[in-house]
């Protein structure tokens, strides 16, 4: 087994092992999308009339519409959280240890991103299982096709988090990230409402939503869950992943956490 692969298994395995041991973290991560699904969507159902747009072939309830968007939200939160922890205090010690490995840094960072992505996928499937119990059931092929798609979207969002943490100085804490990254990214996307709805309100906002890579991640997940591939979304997500990843790997500087840590 090559050194690259054994490092990947060790790093990803450690992330998963730590995650399953922290049961509270798992539950906390599930509460957020479930509140949206069980409370927000129920209340919002009457306010929003949805027409039939692909991949849906019939009228759907609002709960059905937002499930893919909430899966995207799980990955968005995870991507930001795990990437920030690489740069700031919490994981700083283990990052310093990781960087003493003779393997190239870009590979170590990709392993870390993959570890975080796998955790977001575990959460996403747990959420999908609860959603299914609640009545939002996808075809079996959809659950299968979602797996590679979630790897792609999770990596994209993790790379975005890493890129942000190494380029923007002011995002010192998670609250800042919530306000300035996660909420705008989430609301300016097709996660909660279809883009044509947004176009009715404002063309400008519609354009921003259409350019937002998160929109394309959500659409990619939405189509995948119905066992379809959305080609343009795939292209967008792939492109965004490449750009974010290269930027994140070039911009990563382990000094940032260290210098800041010293005050």
């Amino acid at each position, binding site marked *: 087994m090559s050194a690259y692969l054994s490092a990947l298994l*060790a*790093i990803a395995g450690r992330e998963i092992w*730590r995650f399953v041991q922290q049961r509270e973290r798992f539950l906390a991560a599930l509460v957020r999308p479930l509140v949206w699904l069980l409370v927000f969507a129920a209340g919002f159902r009457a306010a929003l009339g949805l027409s039939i747009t692909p991949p849906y072939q019939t009228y759907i309830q609002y709960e059905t519409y937002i499930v893919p968007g909430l899966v995207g939200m799980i990955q968005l939160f995870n991507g930001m959280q795990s990437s920030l922890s690489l740069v700031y205090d919490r994981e700083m010690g283990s990052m310093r*240890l990781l960087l003493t490995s*003779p393997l190239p840094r870009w590979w170590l960072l990709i392993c870390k991103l993959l570890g975080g992505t796998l955790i977001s996928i575990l959460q996403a499937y747990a959420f999908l299982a609860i959603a299914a119990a609640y009545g939002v059931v996808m075809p079996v092929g959809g659950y299968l096709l979602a797996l590679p798609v979630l790897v792609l979207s999770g990596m994209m969002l993790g790379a975005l988090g890493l890129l942000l943490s190494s380029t923007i100085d002011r995002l010192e804490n998670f609250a800042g990230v919530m306000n300035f990254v996660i909420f705008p990214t989430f609301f300016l996307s097709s996660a909660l409402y279809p883009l044509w709805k947004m176009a009715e309100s404002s063309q400008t906002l519609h354009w921003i939503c259409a350019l937002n890579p998160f929109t394309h991640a959500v659409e990619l997940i939405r189509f995948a869950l119905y066992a379809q591939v959305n080609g343009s979304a795939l292209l967008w997500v792939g492109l965004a992943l490449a750009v974010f990843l290269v930027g994140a790997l070039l911009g990563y500087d382990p000094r940032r956490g260290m210098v800041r840590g010293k005050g």
Partner: protein
Amino acid sequence: MSSFASEHSSEPALAIEGLSYAYGPVRALADVSVTLARGQFCALLGPNGAGKSTLFALLTRLFVSRAGRIAVMGHDLGAEPRAALAQMGVVFQQSTLDLDLSVMHNIRYFGALHGLSRRQATERGEAALAAIGLADLAGRKARALSGGQRRRVEIARALIHRPALLLLDEPTVGLDAPSRRAITDHVHALCREQGITALWATHLVDEIEPQDQALILHQGRVRAQGIVADLCAGQSLAERFAALTHTDEAAA
């Protein structure tokens, strides 16, 4: 892969030449040069803020300096970082054990980062734990260990890929006197018996023996360097150290 004894045996374990580093306008290290032969124990002595942590960050490639050169067993850290890092084991000031994982899991994780197979890492880990009398604790969570035990596990782990050079950044911080003594003696024995070269950062002179090398760093510059017995010339190391780093205390 880890045949450091045969390979480059004529090269010094660590060679630093003209190393400088600045945090913006603040000079942290100025023109530091040092050469450590195989099997040497070198104490890196300096008061807080002397540049010890900066030097460690440069040695572990956390920082990169354009001024100066670092070579480990003849491998230039800038040009061949992977070969250089493979010859280096590091014990950081703050513990990097994963407290929620077992001792052996911690060792296997580290082994994998250095290209060891699971079996190799387990075998070497068991041997290393047995050598420091902690074999019984392999399955315990790291959290259950005392501070001194954790340190000894970290030292054993840092040697699992059989590096030639061991870097320790104030490894006895926060430990009681017997634990400090045990760890200091252990690393001295590693140098003597296994030919490992250790660079040991500290500000505590009682961790150093007369036959050790010492590198006294103050305000980013090397103030004195050599065998401790020669450096002191009749004085105690504590007196000599205080004299050499006098200005700092007056300023502080």
